[in-house]
């Protein structure tokens, strides 16, 4: 039986390509906002493009936060937040005034070009960039220093607990580009738009889901 991955549909962006890429690498995913599907899911992906406050308020309106809390925080369901979906995992953001989910410690801040190593480096951080592995994890299996991912963002997570940082990326300075704590993973880039490298991320995530289900 294929593990079911639910891609949460809360009106914040590109779930079609994520669904297609997961199917392309042999996974079983569906797009849904139905709490019943979240009950049945073996993993949940929180996508997201757009502004922080808009994201958290749409997530709240969709009525899934309680069930997500239960499944992810208590029952340790594998969870992947992508881009804004990663930022929403944290406590707050400079981009808005609303509180985030607060599942991970830290906050979201705007790139500060005053601290950049080279003042001509531009904001937003938009384009393909590499990641530096900070520690080993199944999510990084088969990905090396030349693996690159597509980023589009003006804000990044900060003040993250060191042990939660899986990978960092340099743009003016180094910031956390992959975070992970137990079953919760967040990636700042878009794996669904990072062709072969993104496919490897989804393959690895599916393997994590498989292991977690059969534990």
């Amino acid at each position, binding site marked *: 039986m294929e593990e079911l991955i639910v891609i949460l549909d809360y009106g914040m962006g590109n*779930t*079609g390509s994520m669904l297609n890429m997961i199917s392309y690498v042999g996974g079983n995913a569906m797009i849904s906002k139905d709490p019943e599907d979240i009950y049945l899911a073996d993993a949940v992906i929180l996508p997201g*493009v757009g502004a922080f406050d808009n994201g958290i308020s749409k997530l709240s309106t969709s009525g899934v936060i309680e069930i997500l809390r239960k499944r992810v925080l208590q029952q340790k369901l594998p969870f992947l937040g992508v881009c804004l979906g990663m930022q929403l995992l944290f406590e707050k953001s400079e981009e808005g005034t609303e509180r985030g989910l607060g599942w991970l410690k830290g906050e979201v801040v705007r790139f500060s070009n005053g601290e950049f190593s080279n003042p001509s480096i531009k904001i937003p951080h938009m384009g393909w960039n590499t990641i530096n592995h900070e520690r080993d994890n199944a999510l990084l299996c088969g990905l090396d220093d030349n693996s690159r991912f597509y980023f589009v963002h003006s804000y990044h997570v900060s003040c993250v607990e060191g042990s939660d940082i899986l990978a960092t990326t340099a743009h003016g300075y180094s910031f956390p580009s992959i975070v992970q704590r137990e079953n919760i993973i967040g990636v700042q880039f878009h794996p669904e*738009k990072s*062709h072969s490298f993104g496919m490897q991320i989804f393959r690895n995530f599916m393997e994590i889901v498989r292991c977690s289900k059969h534990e």
Partner: protein
Amino acid sequence: MLKTRVIPSLLLKGRGLVKGQQFKNHRYVGDPINAVQIFNKKLVDELLFLDISATSQECGPNYELLKDIASEAFMPFAYGGGVENCKQVEKLFNIGVEKVIINSAVFNNPQFITDASNIAGSQSIVISVDVKRNMIGSHTVYSNNGLKKTNRKPVEYAKQLEDLGAGEIVLCSINNEGTAKGYDLELLYEVSREVGIPVVASGGAGCLNDFKDAINIGKVSAVAAGNMFIFQGKLNAVLPSYPSPKELQDLFRESNNG
């Protein structure tokens, strides 16, 4: 450090892919979905679609087609053509377009850029700026697929776009488009040194060296090309192509791009 983006720029007309020269004489070159699937395999950095029928016919974006393209594309994908209000912007993001390109609507309603940036985040709002060079080398911005002359100069216009919240500028030379004789490097340099947001070179690329010149001399952040990635050989046969990762790495090795 960011890798220099090399972007196939594809023109849509109805449900077909077309290509022309200097914004005219468009001919049908194939099916967009088929092209996306080929570019997927070639590990393309980003795709750019411009629907040249959307503004002139005032029918707005073809959401059905764009939804299909977005679901097939395993790379970021930008769309422009007939985008003039926030409802459309929101809808485009919801169907999976990563970046929305605005052009003609800016002239009637500059505030639209700011409103769109507030919905989508400024990084996803791209303004395409089409520029014509006259006999004495002076540059002027045109709207409506190059049909309508405005009274704007590229540099002051680009600065205003940045202030309004644009995240990126696609800067196209109407004179050079489809000619394969190289980018208008003067135009690229003039604009990119004055703005803090990324500038994408467009119009005129005929060979890999043109990319290098745009980066090193034009000081742009990324390059776009149409014909070069669509037509092959002396007979201009239609065959989507793209440089290998190795070729691009060698090409930009010495470029210092932010």
